[in-house]
């Protein structure tokens, strides 16, 4: 019953709890003493400047990186024990799109985690994959080789693969990077739908103006948690100033936008 959305919403334990997490690359800390308790059924944006450790945070939360200190719990258990409840959308550039697989093959990979070792995808898995492709309007492309896709289509395929994972907690690394406006709108709708089903979504995002529109909650990150809370409470010029350190010219623009709108 792990995937039952009602069970997920009724859950008392936090989908994600991080305590005193420190992650280092080559002895240089990238994340410092992160404490985080994520409530269920929220769409959360992770924003911060380049090198703030946004990708590192979600990778560490999924157990993909060695932790220097601290711990991570997913639905009250160490992440390794709850991997099937975690879905992942990596950065689009992280894979070779000339790889000899079809769109369908990639989406089926979303089912692999549930299958475990050796077992092959069944007809049920194929049906699920097809449904997920349909949700992102990529079903007509199921048998295409992935190199023939546009950037937006590639991102939709990655989302379909994450949908096929049927998880309760999703980590997405810049799903809006380099996609067309139609795809961006489609992704936003999809994320809202997932949230309404009680899923929890953490999305790395780098466009400040749209972050304000898209997310319920924001995690402002710059090697440490600058602020975490409801978007209205956190998206202030003062907090953004703290996060971006005033280095970016975009900051003043956004601060101005905030001032005008509120």
């Amino acid at each position, binding site marked *: 019953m792990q995937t039952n959305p009602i069970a997920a919403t009724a859950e008392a334990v936090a989908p994600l709890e991080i305590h005193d997490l420190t992650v280092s690359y080559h002895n240089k800390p990238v994340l410092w003493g992160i404490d985080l308790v994520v409530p269920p059924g929220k769409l959360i944006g992770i924003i911060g400047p380049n090198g703030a450790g946004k990708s590192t945070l979600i990778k560490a939360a*999924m157990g993909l990186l060695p932790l220097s200190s601290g711990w991570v719990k997913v639905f009250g258990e160490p992440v390794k024990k709850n991997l099937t409840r975690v879905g992942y959308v990596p950065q689009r550039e992280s894979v070779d799109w000339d790889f000899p697989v079809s769109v369908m093959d990639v989406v089926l990979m979303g089912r*692999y985690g549930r299958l475990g070792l*050796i077992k092959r995808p069944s007809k049920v898995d194929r049906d699920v994959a097809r449904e997920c492709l349909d949700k992102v309007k990529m079903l007509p492309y199921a048998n295409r*080789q992935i190199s023939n896709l546009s950037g937006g289509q590639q991102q939709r395929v990655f989302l379909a693969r994450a949908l096929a994972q049927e998880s309760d907690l999703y980590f997405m690394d810049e799903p809006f990077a380099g996609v067309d406006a139609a795809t961006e709108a489609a992704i936003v709708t999809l994320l809202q739908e997932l949230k309404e089903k009680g899923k929890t979504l953490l999305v790395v995002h780098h466009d400040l103006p749209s972050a304000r529109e898209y997310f319920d909650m924001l995690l402002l990150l710059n090697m440490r948690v600058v602020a975490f809370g409801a978007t209205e409470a956190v998206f202030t010029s003062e907090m953004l100033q703290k996060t971006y350190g005033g280095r970016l010219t975009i900051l003043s623009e956004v601060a101005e936008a905030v001032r005008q709108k509120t």
Partner: protein
Amino acid sequence: MFMNLQATNHAPASWRKRRSTTALQNLAALLILLVLSPASAHAAKISELGDTSIIEQALRFFTFQDPSVRYALAGSMLLGITCGLLGSFIVVRKMALVGDALSHAVLPGVAIGFLWNMSKDPVAIFIGATIAGLLGTVMVRLITQTTHLKEDTALGLVLATFFAVGICLLTMIQRLPTGNKSGIDKFLFGQAAAMGPGDIQLMAVVTVLSIVVITLFYKEFLVTSFDPGFASAAGFPTQMIHYGLMLLLAFAIVIALQAVGVVLVSAMLITPAASAYLLTDRMSRMLWLAAIFGLLAGALGSFVSFLGPNLPTGPLMVLAATTVFALAFLFSPQHGIANRWWRQRSRAKRVQRENTLKSVYHVLESRHTMGEGVSLRELAERRRETIEEAARQAAELRRHELATLHEEGDLIFLTPAGWQLACAIVRNHRLWELYLTNAAQIAADHVHEDAEKIEHVLGDEVVRELERRLQYATTDPHGRPIPSLAEMQRGAGAADKPGDSIGYGKRT
């Protein structure tokens, strides 16, 4: 013995025909049977039968009649399959250089395996070489993790060092009293004839192991190769799968050493897999093709090396594999350059035909008369070409039934189809010019060159869209009329008998 030979004679045919896992397993079983059958026949080596024809030699070779030949052929085919399968993963994981480094790193292990009990014991050499290969990969990892040197540098470093140590040891062995007869030098360039029953058994074991592991863990190899980050997040032991693959790769290299040689074994990994990659865009098909190409290259290479005395097998196998690659490179349906060239050529010819038609239209248009024949001289003047060139193009139009030629072939009459196409091209050209000047605010004298190219590629849908946006305009920016759809249609209804033709301004 007789039964065994019967079975093995049919093995290669059944291989290529059936395409299922069970077929593969049957084949493996047959090959093992072949390998384990006692070698009791006393036929002469092919290379010693100087006066036989190449066909007889081929027949003798590929029917496994001679025991010595049987080992060489079976071994070459086995190593071809294993290298093709593992090479596919090496190629898609962009680890081609790793294969090369690993193959050089095993050489000291080969020498130490030999020194272990001063004989060419396949098992001792296999163990020594595998350990040396893995040691090499560990050292590469150590260098990349502890310094800021990148992997390619570390690979180059380790490759050269291990190879140098190996060559030193081999030279030492050659100087030993028993060493110079040992055939250990064959490990450099490969000699299929040097393989014995022990080698073949080892190769069969490794081949079957590779097939079984890849069949069982296909899904795991696929997902960790395509997206290791996602695979780890989904709970797959990505590192362990990587090392498992490296171990199989080391096995494949070690069994191929004897026949192919240290220097070229990486080519047997990369070339069949690269050829397969050009021909398909699905991993499963790529594995099949690479295995078949590897098998072919192995069989052909060992056969050619048997034709003459002391021909090294390795280079010949690699050349056989390269031949397959060259064919794939030239004739692959999607990526082949022959195909691409052909498509470009037919496109160029179509553009030329359309330009000729357009010139005929222009001649008719400039006349303002009812005359419908265009002479070759008029066409040549219009296109600023020689009469011969114009005649050639007119003949090309006739060949495609776009025009008929009259009066000793120097008058061109467009057929209804030719007229329609000519109108369409002129129409495309003028619509595009108009669109550029109206919508993109480009000066009227800048648009002609662009329209010359675009007129040949505009599809029907785009043309309809252009018409709509230009509100069905009738003249282009230079004031010339845009041929209307009705004008084009006039050609379609006309009778198509000799002498009948359609021309500018003609009412039918």
